[in-house]
């Protein structure tokens, strides 16, 4: 591990010394001429992939290229909800692989990612919701994923501020609860992976935008960047909303469309909200951060865009739903809102795969739900890059599934807020 391991003792010791002597968490690396593997995109998924390549696959000469700053993209812009209650076997395996890694990620990275398994409760408002929720619960249990049905009174017991009265447009008829779900601190995930990867020798190069991909007869050969040409025979693209743009440089077309996804937070208040509540039917999800802000989000904006901002009426629609479910929050002020660019596939399932260009790999299509998958996705992407073939868990998540008709169609059937 790095020279400044974190522990309670080290914190007390530094505190006694007025917190002098803390070092940078990672080096400001200068790009080398050549790397054994390069990851494009310094978010949680990219940094994590570099970390697992170095730790589990013993590659030492690795770089992560980030066009802005570490964790400044969707890793720093999401609502930090973690769950694995997906309907299909392929998705359940993928997201539960990730959830299991969240549970000891702080210990593995020696960095507190503040994972809190406070429970994710998904509300049902119609008879159809109740039926699909119960179907999900049964499917999840068959896959070893915990999920349970709550009657409205039990839901209110779990989240006391919830309005289960019949005075709202879509009364709460019950809820599905995944107790192992929860939240984590998004920035800490990026910083923790960056620090741990750096300690293993990975070069993290910020302010370095890829402007071209050079290929030859053997596949990918080099990257043109704003900081010069960097050679590598193994390149992983983990560029979220810009995946189409980056892979377009190598002539690879993807079944993606990029939309803004907005979130907003309230002013900070005392702890009042013990869990995560989601409602797909009336479009809202909400949790409370450890700072005290209520973190609120919903579905994507209505049209494709790369602007990292969205329309205000989308947020208002979300707040309408939040105020109906939690009348107490009507008097709260919203502190700030923002948007991130999410890459959405037609079946709302990700792509972690090889591309038609040898040596070029892609991890994209996470759409509105990539944060929860960060450790698992990074781990499987690193495996795929190291072995030049997919891990059994991500084997179904190819680009070719759109050609072959093996869609993993979470869009229509999953407990996913779109």
């Amino acid at each position, binding site marked *: 591990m790095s020279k400044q391991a974190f522990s309670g003792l080290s914190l007390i010791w530094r505190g006694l010394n007025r917190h002098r002597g803390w070092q940078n968490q990672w080096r400001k690396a200068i790009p080398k001429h050549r790397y054994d593997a390069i990851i494009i995109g310094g978010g949680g998924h990219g940094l994590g992939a570099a970390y697992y390549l170095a730790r589990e696959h013993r590659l030492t000469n690795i770089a992560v290229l980030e066009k802005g700053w570490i964790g400044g993209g969707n890793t720093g812009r999401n609502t930090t909800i973690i769950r694995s209650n997906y309907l299909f076997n392929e998705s359940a395996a993928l997201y539960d692989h990730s959830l299991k890694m969240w549970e000891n990620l702080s210990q593995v990275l020696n960095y507190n990612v503040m994972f809190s398994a406070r429970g994710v409760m998904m509300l049902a408002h119609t008879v159809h919701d109740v039926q699909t929720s119960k179907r999900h619960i049964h499917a999840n249990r068959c896959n070893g994923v915990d999920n349970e049905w709550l009657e409205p009174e039990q839901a209110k017991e779990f989240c006391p501020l919830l309005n289960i009265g019949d005075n709202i447009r879509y009364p709460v008829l019950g809820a599905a609860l995944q107790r192992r779900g929860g939240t984590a601190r998004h920035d800490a995930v990026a910083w923790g992976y960056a620090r741990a990867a750096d300690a293993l020798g990975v070069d993290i190069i910020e302010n370095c935008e890829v402007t071209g991909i050079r290929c030859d007869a053997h596949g990918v050969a080099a990257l043109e960047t704003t900081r010069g040409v960097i050679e590598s025979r193994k390149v992983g693209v983990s560029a979220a909303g*810009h995946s*189409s*743009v980056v892979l377009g440089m190598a002539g690879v*077309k*993807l*079944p*993606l*469309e*990029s939309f803004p996804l907005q979130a907003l937070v309230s002013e900070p208040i005392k702890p009042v909200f013990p869990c995560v509540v989601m409602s797909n039917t009336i479009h809202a999800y909400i949790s409370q951060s450890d700072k005290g802000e209520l973190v609120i989000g919903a579905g994507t904006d*209505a*049209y*494709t*865009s*790369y*602007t990292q901002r969205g*329309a*205000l*009426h989308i947020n*208002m629609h979300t707040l309408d739903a939040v105020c109906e479910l939690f009348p107490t929050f009507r008097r709260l002020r919203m502190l700030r809102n923002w948007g991130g660019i999410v*890459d959405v596939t*037609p079946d709302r399932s990700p792509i972690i795969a090889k591309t038609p260009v040898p040596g070029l790999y892609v991890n994209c299509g996470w759409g509105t739900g990539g944060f929860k998958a960060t450790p698992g996705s990074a781990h499987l992407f690193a495996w795929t890059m190291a072995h030049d073939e997919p891990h059994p868990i991500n084997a179904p998540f190819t680009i070719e599934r*759109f*050609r*072959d*008709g093996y869609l993993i169609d979470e869009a229509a059937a999953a407990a996913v807020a779109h």
Partner: protein
Amino acid sequence: MRPRQPPWLTEGAPVLLIPCPYCGDRPEIEFTHGGQAHLVRPARPADLDDQAWAEFLYMRSNTKGVHAERWRHARGCGQFFNALRDTTTDHFLAVYKSGTPRPAT
């Protein structure tokens, strides 16, 4: 006299104006987005192989920059039309009727 209310409670949310070629500038919430324009359905579907079908059904340009796309004035005149929009700024550069070629920019 009614108490004065903040404008967002009385006038609706501020929105982008979209120039419908039939109705003129109208607020964004009257429109639905129809995705990439100029995707032509294959004339002889039976001749297509799986890869060609995947291209037609799923692969999209996802352009960062000027994007030709379909819109429908769903809560207005109901007409479909095409537009050129810069996806890095959301500015509309041109609108034109369905079936006509993409204008030069």
